């Protein structure tokens, strides 16, 4: 589906990670030989991982705080908050409601969660900008992230354990949109539900409350199906998008792909006419960070630049669903903030350790 939404603009991007970075050599017992091959093929040298009590919303909250403070935004003027994640704080309620409170936003700001992964940043922008275009909201806030490092484990499958265990990192991002006459955002989005088994956390909720081996908090991925999907569908969509917009790779300063795996990214760049030097890479440092990966890559690349210059970025996210989406973004480098590190987490009053601590006081 192609959609064009008028009078909206991205005016700020921030991202947050923990203070704990581990190289792949430190987080597994795999042999050096296997790890060298893993680094060469995936591009992942290490990752940031959340502490035990940190959740995705803690990273998104830290990124949003920095963004709203730096941009000096009146929080009363934020009309929509969309939180894209596969790892919400609670089964009920939507974590976006809690984030609305934590960020001190108004009750006039609508807030809800969207359950999407690697395509989620672009889907989230599409949803947010659509709502802004039909409301009086001056600003909209997209929070996107996941803490997948603790989620993925394919240990039950032979000889692929090292791949999924090391491939994912934790982070959260915040992207600020403003109503802006004359600006617009265009999207090309697709969903292929017949591929729902390719990336799935099948146990622990209502369809299958229990698993055969008693473990419920893990996801499984069919690497080959995902690889074939990503390297065929994403290039086709990017090419269709550029055809629709009447653009070529020469019209963009950079190609920002979901940081899935270096092999996948190089193939997509090659098939869409982008040179590898235009394809931004952050997964060497952050691994695959799901819906965070596109804004996090922009922060990693431009976050320390104070240059007052707009860049045209062609962004494409693809993954769980299966779903995939493309958007062209024009963002000023000075509106892309430096990376935030945080060790903070939200004490909601329900954590057993915190309850015990309070009782002892």
């Amino acid at each position, binding site marked *: 589906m192609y959609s064009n939404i008028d009078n909206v603009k991205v005016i700020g991007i921030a991202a947050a990670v923990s203070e704990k970075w581990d190289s792949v050599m430190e987080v597994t017992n795999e042999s050096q030989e*296997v790890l060298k*091959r*893993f680094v060469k093929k995936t591009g992942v040298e290490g990752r940031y991982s959340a502490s035990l009590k940190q959740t995705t919303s803690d990273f998104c909250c830290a990124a949003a705080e920095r963004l709203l403070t730096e941009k000096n935004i009146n929080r009363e003027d934020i009309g929509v908050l969309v939180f894209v994640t596969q790892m919400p704080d609670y089964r009920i309620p939507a974590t976006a409601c809690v984030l609305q409170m934590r960020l001190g936003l108004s009750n006039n700001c609508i807030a809800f969660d969207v359950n999407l992964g690697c395509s989620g940043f672009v889907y989230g922008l599409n949803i947010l900008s659509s709502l802004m275009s039909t409301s009086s909201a001056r600003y909209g806030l997209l929070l996107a992230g996941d803490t997948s490092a603790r989620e993925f484990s394919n240990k039950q499958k032979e*000889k692929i354990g090292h791949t999924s265990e090391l491939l994912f990192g934790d982070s959260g991002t915040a992207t600020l949109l403003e109503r802006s006459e004359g600006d617009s955002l265009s999207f090309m989005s697709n969903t292929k539900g017949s591929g729902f088994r390719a990336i799935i956390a099948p146990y622990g909720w209502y369809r299958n409350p229990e698993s055969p081996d008693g473990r419920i908090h893990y996801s499984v991925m069919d*690497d*080959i199906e995902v690889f*074939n999907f990503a390297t065929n569908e994403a290039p086709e969509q990017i090419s269709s998008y550029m055809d629709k917009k009447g653009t070529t790779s020469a019209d963009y300063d950079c190609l920002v792909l979901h940081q899935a*795996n270096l092999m996948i990214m190089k193939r997509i760049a090659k098939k869409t006419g982008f040179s590898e030097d235009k394809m931004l890479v952050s997964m060497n440092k952050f691994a695959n960070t799901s819906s965070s990966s596109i804004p996090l890559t922009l922060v990693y690349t431009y976050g320390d630049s104070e240059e007052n210059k707009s860049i045209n970025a062609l962004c494409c996210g693809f993954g769980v669903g299966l779903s995939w989406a493309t958007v062209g973004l024009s963002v000023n480098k000075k509106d892309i903030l430096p990376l935030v590190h945080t060790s903070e987490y939200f004490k909601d009053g329900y954590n057993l350790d915190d309850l015990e601590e309070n009782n002892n006081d």
Partner: protein
Amino acid sequence: MTEQEKIALIEETLDLDEGTLTADTVLDDVDEYDSMAKLSLIVMMDDEFGVKLTGDVIKGFKTVGDILAVMN
């Protein structure tokens, strides 16, 4: 391309030393034949032979000879 050249290409794709594989080598016995290697195989087959490998086809590969059979 001779069979030997094709085997050399598979060895290069799987990051193996030359002379490691024969047509009879059982893939399950090759430590390096893991999920990343399978993705590299997909890329090589597409680039060099225009062959699109699906998951089912890859699951059917038991020996190096099975891979050679689709390298046309």
